[in-house]
């Protein structure tokens, strides 16, 4: 266990913007974390994930001085037309944020007070415990009953500076009955070595819907751990799409519980990696109730010596009859030295279900390249056409044109980059 965790933990408990009650929650999580330790390669879900940069690193928590100047301008991070909540090195920046009034945004302290400090403290992995132990100011977003917020709300996470920081944003999202929220997480920043460990805890009430976009475009020296927990009630819908482009180590754990009948979730993603980047996606969909539909569809495109993981699990628990689930993972290797580990899993404990899964990993098809070139298009353009074609299925799910244009711009510049 790296020393910095213990020394930083002493500091975090001195923080003033959290009530004392938080300290007992933090301490409990930290004790559990110490007991459990960081994952190692013997753990099936961590076999192919190298976290030595966390183990050997030395990070400190973000202090007030790491917050931006009052005149900080977020327009350098694009899409300033969107309603945005700004998190700068872990600090929620109310003055830089623009949020619609119909949305209730409260501090995590207030939120947890309302929930007796007990609820929503995920313990699934060490990184969840670590997030609870170190959680920064964060926010809780509450959409009350029967409210439709159609324009995406952006959560802009800026990792900035040369200090080796460790930030632990905590976001709670409650979507009320028959309400709709569209949430867009945008991860950016020019930071040097940086350990970002975020937990997002979502609850969607009956007939509610959350569209969730996550665009991770961190610097190439950032560690980005995203821990997502979603609970869905009757007839609710969760639609998630991730674009993981940046980071030295990026890992997203998505845990979805379909708790009541008629709940549906669709999770998709596109990861682009190059150099020595490692991008990881772990998705677990739990079907606890009958008549739920779920889909997992993830794609990776890998260049250079980069590597990736897809661990997808769909668990159909006893009694979850009439489950309809599909799972797909497709990976494109643009380099002989790139490595992808794909592990689609299906566990079924009910007998009347429809489940499919599949996985494929390979290079571009030479027949397709020849076909395009035989029409007078050069090899480089032909490759780009095919790679675009491969990615388009995921990019096309974006409905907001500004976000889509931004993703396409990132994608194109990544593709054009020569090594």
């Amino acid at each position, binding site marked *: 266990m790296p020393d910095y965790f213990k020394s930083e933990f002493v500091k975090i408990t001195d923080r003033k913007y959290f009530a004392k009650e938080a300290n007992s929650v933090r301490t409990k999580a930290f004790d559990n974390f110490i007991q459990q330790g960081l994952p190692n390669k013997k753990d099936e879900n961590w076999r192919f994930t190298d976290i030595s940069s966390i183990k050997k690193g030395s990070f400190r928590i973000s202090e007030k001085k790491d917050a931006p100047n009052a005149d900080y301008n977020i327009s350098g991070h694009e899409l300033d037309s969107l309603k945005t909540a700004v998190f700068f090195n872990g600090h929620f920046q109310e003055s830089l944020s623009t949020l619609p009034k119909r949305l209730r945004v409260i501090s995590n302290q207030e939120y947890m007070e309302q929930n007796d400090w007990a609820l929503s403290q995920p313990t699934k992995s060490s990184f969840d415990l670590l997030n609870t132990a170190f959680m920064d100011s964060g926010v809780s977003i509450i959409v009350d009953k029967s409210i439709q917020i159609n324009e995406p709300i952006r959560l802009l996470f800026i990792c900035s500076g040369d200090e080796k920081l460790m930030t632990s944003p905590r976001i709670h999202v409650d979507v009320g009955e028959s309400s709709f929220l569209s949430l867009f997480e945008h991860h950016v920043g020019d930071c040097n070595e940086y350990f970002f460990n975020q937990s997002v805890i979502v609850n969607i009430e009956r007939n509610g819907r959350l569209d969730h976009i996550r665009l991770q475009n961190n610097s190439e020296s950032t560690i980005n751990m995203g821990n997502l927990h979603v609970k869905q009630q009757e007839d609710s819908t969760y639609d998630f799409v991730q674009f993981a482009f940046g980071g030295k180590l990026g890992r997203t754990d998505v845990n979805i519980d379909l708790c009541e009948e008629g709940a549906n979730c669709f999770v998709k993603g596109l990861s682009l990696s190059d150099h020595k980047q490692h991008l990881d996606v772990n998705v677990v969909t739990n079907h606890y109730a009958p008549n739920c539909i779920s889909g997992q569809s993830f794609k990776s495109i890998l260049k250079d010596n980069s590597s990736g993981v897809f661990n997808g699990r769909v668990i159909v628990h006893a009694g979850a009859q009439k489950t309809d689930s599909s799972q797909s993972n497709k990976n494109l290797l643009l380099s002989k030295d790139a490595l992808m580990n794909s592990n689609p899993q299906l566990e079924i404990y009910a007998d009347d279900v429809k489940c499919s899964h599949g996985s494929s990993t390979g290079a571009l098809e030479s027949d397709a390249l020849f076909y395009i070139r035989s029409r*007078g298009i050069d090899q480089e353009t032909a490759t780009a056409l095919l790679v675009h074609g491969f990615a388009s299925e995921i990019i096309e799910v974006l409905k907001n044109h500004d976000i889509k244009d931004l993703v396409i711009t990132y994608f194109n510049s990544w593709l054009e980059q020569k090594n």
Partner: protein
Amino acid sequence: MLNVKKLHAGISGKEILKGVDLSISPGEIHAVMGRNGSGKSTLSNVITGKEGYVISKGDIEYKDESIVEWSPEKRALAGIFMSFQYPVVMPGVNNTYFLKAALNSKLKNNGKKELNAAEFLKLVKEKLNELDMDTSYLQRAVNEGFSGGEKKRNEILQMLTLEPELAIMDETDSGLDIDALKIIANGVNKYRNPSRSFLVITHYQRLLRYIKPDFVHVLIDGKFVRSGGKELALELEEKGYEWLEE
């Protein structure tokens, strides 16, 4: 226009073409007939420059230049086109986008102004009409979910749009019903003119009823065993290939 000279070629260490001579002048239609495995597809693949084939002897000249070292795209830009026996399905690649990229690559190569979206659409709609295709083709991904006939029509659409001077039709009739065959033959016949040549590769005589060749060559075991006029195709239909095989 095309001169194949004493060509020996193969793949994976196996010689498939064992000395093919073929000379096509502008405006001519040549048919190459043969059974499966006789080397028909190898011939079309080496002319268009597919990777993996090795030319051990002989040469391929196009407009008096040897093209065997040329990339597939260079050959295409010089005016060589192949209608594929098995057109490749490309999920996520829009048909219009693909065709426009191909046409603009050619225009650029010829020092001409590239077409914008509106100009391209106007042009391609005329071609669609000729082939009795509706505009929904343009929105779809290249060959994805296309029936056999639709794929072949899409090949001809590409030909009409790119305006090659030498068009190779590789088993264009396979998998087509008679109506689709007529539409395609009609497209080819309208496209014919004294400066454009065709190499029609087929197993059966059926297609040659609609696209009338000037010359017919019979390919058996990597060699032309007989060449003649269009009556040779009829003779083959009647007698089969056996009488030419020793």
